[in-house]
C-alpha cells in the first residue's frame, strides 16, 4: 500500500493537468493567406451552458430608441470618458487600449488565443493577424479566466473585412471613408452563474445598425457601452448590475448590407465572405475575482 501511495505521489506532477499544453496551435493556425482558414468559430463550451433566464436589451445609437427595458447605449455626448463608436478611428488613440486592457488589469487574461482581445491592441499596430480575431456571423464565445467583480463600462474595437482581394475585385465597402457604409447588428451575451446550481442567467445586449469601417486596413471603431436608466426627474443613473458577476460572454453579428455574392457565414457557399475583425474587448477599470 505504501509503495502504491509513493508511486501515486510521484505521478502527481504529471496528473496536474499540464496547463501549458491545453491550448496549443500549429504555427500557421489562423495566420493563413487563405481568408477562409482564419475564422475563429470556437464557443469553448459556452454554447452548451444551461440557461435559466435571458434578459434581452435592445440598445441603439439614437438615445431613447427602444427603451422598453430602460437600458440604453449612452451616446458620446453623455459619455465624457468614452469614445463614439460611429466616428472615425482617429478619435481614439492606441493609448486607450494600452491603459485599459484586461491583461494589464489581471494577468490571468494573458494566456490563450483570445489574449489577442485583451492585450490592448485596439488596432493592427503592425501586428496584423496577431492583433485580431476573425469572426463569422456565429461569432465566438468564451469563459473569462475570472468573474467580473465591478466595472465602469464595456467596450470593444472592431472593423469589417472581406475577401474580394483574392479575385482582384474592388470591395463594395471601399476604403476607410467607405463607399457603402458597413452595417452590422451585434448580439452580445453575458453569462452569470447562479449559485449552487449548474445554470446561468443570460444578459443579451443587442446593438443595431452599428457602422464600422470595412476593408480599411488598420482602421477600427471603438464601441463603448454604458448601461443607463432614466429617472423620473430627468436625471440618468448608470447601471452596472446587469453585467457584473459575468463569467462568460459570446459575440455574434449579422451583416445588414445586402450585397449579392457576399455572405457573413463562413460555412455558406458564396463567391465572397465577410468577417468581423475583433481587435479588443475592454472592461476599463474593472476588477475580477
Amino acid at each position: 500500500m505504501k509503495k502504491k501511495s509513493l508511486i501515486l505521489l510521484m505521478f502527481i506532477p504529471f496528473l496536474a493537468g499540464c496547463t501549458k499544453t491545453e491550448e496549443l496551435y500549429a504555427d500557421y493556425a489562423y495566420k493563413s493567406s487563405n481568408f477562409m482558414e482564419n475564422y475563429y468559430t470556437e464557443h469553448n463550451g459556452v454554447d452548451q451552458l444551461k440557461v435559466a433566464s435571458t434578459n434581452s436589451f435592445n440598445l441603439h445609437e439614437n438615445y431613447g430608441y427602444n427603451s422598453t427595458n430602460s437600458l440604453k447605449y449612452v451616446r458620446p455626448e453623455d459619455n465624457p470618458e468614452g469614445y463614439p463608436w460611429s466616428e472615425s478611428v482617429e478619435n481614439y488613440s492606441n493609448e486607450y487600449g494600452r491603459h485599459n486592457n484586461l491583461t494589464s488589469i489581471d494577468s490571468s487574461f494573458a494566456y490563450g488565443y483570445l489574449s489577442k482581445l485583451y492585450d490592448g491592441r485596439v488596432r493592427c499596430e503592425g501586428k496584423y493577424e496577431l492583433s485580431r480575431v476573425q469572426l463569422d456571423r456565429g461569432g465566438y464565445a468564451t469563459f473569462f479566466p475570472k468573474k467580473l467583480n465591478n466595472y465602469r463600462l464595456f467596450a470593444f474595437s472592431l472593423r469589417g473585412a472581406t475577401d474580394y482581394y483574392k479575385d482582384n475585385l474592388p470591395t463594395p465597402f471601399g476604403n476607410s471613408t467607405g463607399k457603402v457604409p458597413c452595417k452590422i447588428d451585434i448580439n452580445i451575451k453575458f453569462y452569470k452563474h447562479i449559485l449552487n446550481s449548474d445554470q446561468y442567467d443570460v444578459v443579451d445586449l443587442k446593438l443595431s445598425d452599428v457602422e464600422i469601417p470595412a476593408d480599411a486596413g488598420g482602421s477600427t471603431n471603438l464601441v463603448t457601452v454604458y448601461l443607463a436608466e432614466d429617472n423620473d426627474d430627468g436625471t440618468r443613473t448608470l447601471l452596472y448590475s446587469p453585467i457584473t458577476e459575468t463569467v462568460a460572454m459570446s459575440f455574434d453579428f449579422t451583416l445588414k448590407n445586402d450585397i449579392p455574392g457576399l455572405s457573413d457565414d463562413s460555412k455558406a457557399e458564396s463567391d465572397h465572405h465577410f468577417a468581423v475583425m475583433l481587435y479588443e474587448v475592454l472592461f476599463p477599470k474593472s476588477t475580477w475575482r
Partner: protein
Amino acid sequence: MASKSFREEYESIGGFLVLELLALVGFGLGGVNLIFQYAGFIIALIATFFAFKNFTKEDLKPILFVGVPLFLMSIFTSFSHYYDCFLSFNILAKIGSFLAIISFFAVGLSARRMQSLSYKKVLYCLGGGLALITLISTIITWSQYGLFYPLIHKNAGSYYYDGNLYSILNEMAWLNGFKISEVSQNYGGTFALLSACFLPALLFIKFKEDKISFLFFAAIGGIGLISILSIPNFYALIVFAIAFLAALFYRFLRNNALAMKILGYSVLVAAGIAAVLIFFAILNNSVKGAHDTIASASFLDRIFNSNKIMLVGNKIIEAALKPFNLFGINTVQYHDGYIFSKTDILTSSGSFEIEIIREGGIFAFLFFLVFVFFAYEAFARYLKTSKDDNYVKVILLTFVVAFVLYSTICYEIFPLTHSETSYYPFTQSLSFYLVLFIIGFIILPKGKEEIEFKEIKRDSKPTNKNADDDYSFSDVTEEEII
C-alpha cells in the same frame, strides 16, 4: 596551550560565508545578480582576510597570470557603452559587475587556502544549489508541460500569451525567485547540465567507502541528468556526453603516456584551429576582399557567414571593430550615421565568445583569450600535480568543459520567454561566476605542487596514491570541517 589568533578562531565563519555564497549562487534566487555581486565582493574581502597568511610567494605568479587579464577584461565588459541602452544597468550595476568578476575569482583563491574549508563541502554546496533549482524547476516543468513535450507537440507547439505567439518547444518552467517564469530550455539546461556534471565523481568513489558522498553526488548528478532527459534537451545531452567522455579519459587514461601525448597534441591543434577561426572571423568583417573570398567558397561561407552564431556574430564583430566601439559597442549614439540596430541588440548569438565581444568590445575579447590561455595552463597543472582527491578533480574538469561547450552553442541573452527587456549579459551570469570561482580554486602555487600544511590538515588518513589512486578517498574528520 597557546591561544588561537583571531584569524584562526573565526576562520570558520569565513568558510561558512563562502559555502553560503556558493549555494545561493548555484540556486540562482531569480537572478538577483546585483545582490550576489556585492555579496560576492564582501565575502571575497572576508575570505581573503582569513586566507591571507596562507598565500605564499609562489602563489603570486600564477595568480597574476590569470588574474591580470581577467581584471582587464572585467573593466571592459563592466563599463562598456553597450549597456547604455538598458536603463537597469546603471553605474551601481557596472561597479557590481566589475567587483563580482574579481571577487568570485578571489573567493576561489581564498577558499583553497582557508584551512577550515573542506573541498567536499564546497562541492556539496555548489552542487546542492544547482540541483535544488534544477529539481524544483523540473517538477514545475513536468506539471505544466508534461514529459517529452517538445517531441509530443512538435507539430503544434505554439501558444498565445498577451496576444503574441510563442512556442513551448524551446521553453520550460523556471523558479525565478519567488515566481514561476517561462525560460528558454537553453538557459534552464545550463543549471541541469552543471548539476549533471557531478555524476562523473562516481567513477572515483566507492559506495562502501563513502556512502554519503556517493549518494550526494549521485543525487545531484541524477537530478541534472533526469531533467535533461525528461524534456529532452538534446544540446545539453550532447555536451554532457562529451564532458563525460573527458571524465572517462581522465579516469582511465590519465596515466597512459601515449594517450596524454595525443591529448596534448589535440589541444594544440584545437587551439590552432580556434586561432585561425578567430583570425578569419575578424578578417571577414574588416577586409572586403577577404569577405568576398569567404562568401564565394561555400564551405568557408558556411563556417563564417551562414550559421546561426555567425549571422549575429558578424554584425557584432563588424560593429566591435569600428574605432568608436573599442570600449564596447555603442548602442545609443550615432557615429557618422552608424548605430547598432535595435534588432541586433535584441538578437542573441548563442555563443558566449561572441557575447563577450558584444558586451566589452574587441579588447575585452583579447584579454579573455589571454585569460583562457593561463587558466588552461593552471587547470592542466592542477590536474597533473594537485593532491586533491580525483573525484574533486573530475567534477571540476567536467564542470568547466561542459560550461564552455554549452555556453559556446546555447548561451541566451534574453532567457525569459515573455520579456524582451530582461537582458542577461554573459559576464554577469551566475554560472560564469561559479566557473570563475573554480578557476580561482584550482590555481596552485608555482614551484610547489601543493600547499603542504593544507594537505596534512585535510587528509585524516594517509592515501596510497601509488597503489590505486583511482579509488583513494581522503576523508576529512568532522572536527576539521564546517
